[in-house]
């Protein structure tokens, strides 16, 4: 006992650098209950927003952003926290969309009477979760890039299946949903779903279940050897992520009033989810929502000014994120020694 561990000095040297001064208070406020309190306050403000007499376009933009935030947060649960980088997550979006389309149009399957939106929406989620269970059991055994590729394959396969199953899905012609426009209803529905999903991720992250997901990401064999039923935890996370992605897919189909295989089973949507999560901060609670908002406005800006080549700067951005700030905005600001951009910024700060 008497001999103090000499290695303690090494740890002193490796001590984490504190966050940037201006960001430090924000960063500590985001952790724990205050973070949730801010989130609920923001939700309240967003709920009051339509009362300020905004146009229906603004409401539409709002619901689009909520969709992106929900998708990014969902993807983050499996891709960021659990470490299973899912390059085919849009498959759950597509399944949700198709379940919605098939149930509310009714005609292809001769379902009569057709389902209402509120009946079909949970069905979209449950169908996606069930599909996640079936696909996850084999694919979640794969590690790293093999899982990513298997999920990408699943997405492409489902697109072709939707194209071929013409009697049910309408094939390449697609499905036309009843055009019932309700911008205000859409706004509030997606606000509620987004509020629920992000709060859920916040809850999961601080629970033992969430910590076990991070443990699986960091060392799956170690987690299994220390008593965590890794298969069960991974599948559960995957199904939760799929459920809400399916809900969003179903909603999107309803709002868009038209679906076909090429608009719902798209790789670009997965890439978007990955990019939003990475930009904000992979595996953090508030990073992916932040990333989603930034990406939305960036996309909007690029679309308006650089139509035709607007994807180019987005692709470059992805490369820049991966190279210089792999831990995203929140990660870089929170621990500046962890990414090269953070180190660069603190060096600039010192020389001044």
């Amino acid at each position, binding site marked *: 006992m008497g001999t103090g561990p000499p290695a303690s000095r090494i740890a002193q040297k490796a001590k*984490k650098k504190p966050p940037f001064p201006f960001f430090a208070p924000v960063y500590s406020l985001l952790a724990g209950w205050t973070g949730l309190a801010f989130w609920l306050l923001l939700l309240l403000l967003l709920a009051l927003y339509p009362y300020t007499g905004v146009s229906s376009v603004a409401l539409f933009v709002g619901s689009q952003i909520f969709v992106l935030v929900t998708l990014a947060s969902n993807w983050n649960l499996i891709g960021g926290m659990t470490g299973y980088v899912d390059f085919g997550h849009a498959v759950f979006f597509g399944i949700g969309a198709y379940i919605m389309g098939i149930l509310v149009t009714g005609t292809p399957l001769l379902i009569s009477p057709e389902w209402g939106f509120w009946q079909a929406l949970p069905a979209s989620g449950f169908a996606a979760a069930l599909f996640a269970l079936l696909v996850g059991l084999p694919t979640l055994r794969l590690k790293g890039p093999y899982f990513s590729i298997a999920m990408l394959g699943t997405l492409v396969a489902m697109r072709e299946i939707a194209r071929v199953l013409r009697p049910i899905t309408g094939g390449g012609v697609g499905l036309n949903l009843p055009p019932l426009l309700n911008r205000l209803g859409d706004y509030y529905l997606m606000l509620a779903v987004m509020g629920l999903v992000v709060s859920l991720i916040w809850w999961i992250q601080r629970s033992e279940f969430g910590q076990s997901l991070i443990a699986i990401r960091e060392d799956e064999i170690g987690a299994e050897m220390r008593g965590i039923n890794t298969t069960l935890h991974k599948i559960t996370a995957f199904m939760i992520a799929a459920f809400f992605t399916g809900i969003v897919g179903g909603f999107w189909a309803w709002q868009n009033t038209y679906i076909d295989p090429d608009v719902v089973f798209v790789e670009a949507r997965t890439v978007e989810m990955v990019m939003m999560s990475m930009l904000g901060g992979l595996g953090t609670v508030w990073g992916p929502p932040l990333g989603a908002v930034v990406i939305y406005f960036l996309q909007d800006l690029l679309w308006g000014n650089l139509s035709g080549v607007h994807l180019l700067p987005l692709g470059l951005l992805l490369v820049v994120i991966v190279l210089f700030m792999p831990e995203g905005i929140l990660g870089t600001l929170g621990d500046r020694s962890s990414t090269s951009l953070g180190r660069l910024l603190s060096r600039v700060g010192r020389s001044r």
Partner: protein
Amino acid sequence: MTSDPRPLLEGRTVSKFFGGLAAVNNVDFAVYPGEIVGLIGPNGSGKTTLFDCLSRLQKIDGGQVFFKGRDVTGARPYQVARMGLTRTFQSVRVYRKMTVLRNMLISHQWRDTSLWRMLRPSPASTAHRARQLLEFLQIEHLADEEAGRLSGGQRRLLEIGMALMPDPDILLLDEATSGVNPTLIETIKDRIRTLNAQGKTFLLIEHNINFIADLCSRVYVLNYGEKLAEGAPLEILQNEAVIDAYFGA
């Protein structure tokens, strides 16, 4: 050491093949409650593979494994872990991006963990036990460090702490002293003795012969996947076949 007639952990004719290579071949193996047993052998003799077979990380190709009298041959690693068998790894496995304390917290006993408990943050009792163990291993000052920032030796101590968290009956330590400085080795040795006096059983893979000779009551020697010898440390060290295997004829 007092030996219970019933082994705590037992392998019967355990075999494991990698292609045509018999990594472990027909090994009979038993650890009794309260023992400290050593497992030695030259590099590539199958020690870690045998560990993997006993802790269920590797499917075995022949034979059976019993733990606490129950056949666990087909069990998954998390199941034997919940029954009371934990281990460390030759190449340390800690959760690098998590703090030392969180590493400890998440390694609690998962047996009978209710769904409600899983949906909550770790309770204070778990944190209390974690801090006690960190203190016991003299790394409590590192509790809030990211595990990836620790030195090799500190990580080994942390991994032992994580293996102790669920209050196991037997600990399998795979080269707990490799890469660790002599002072720390003495600490580890001291801690193993204390824990053993409290009733914990140990199975150690070691290259450090002094470490084995100091601690173990019995030693198994593996060579080319087969059991070469078995007995008290001093007998083993004078065994002709063992000397041959280690130093060549």
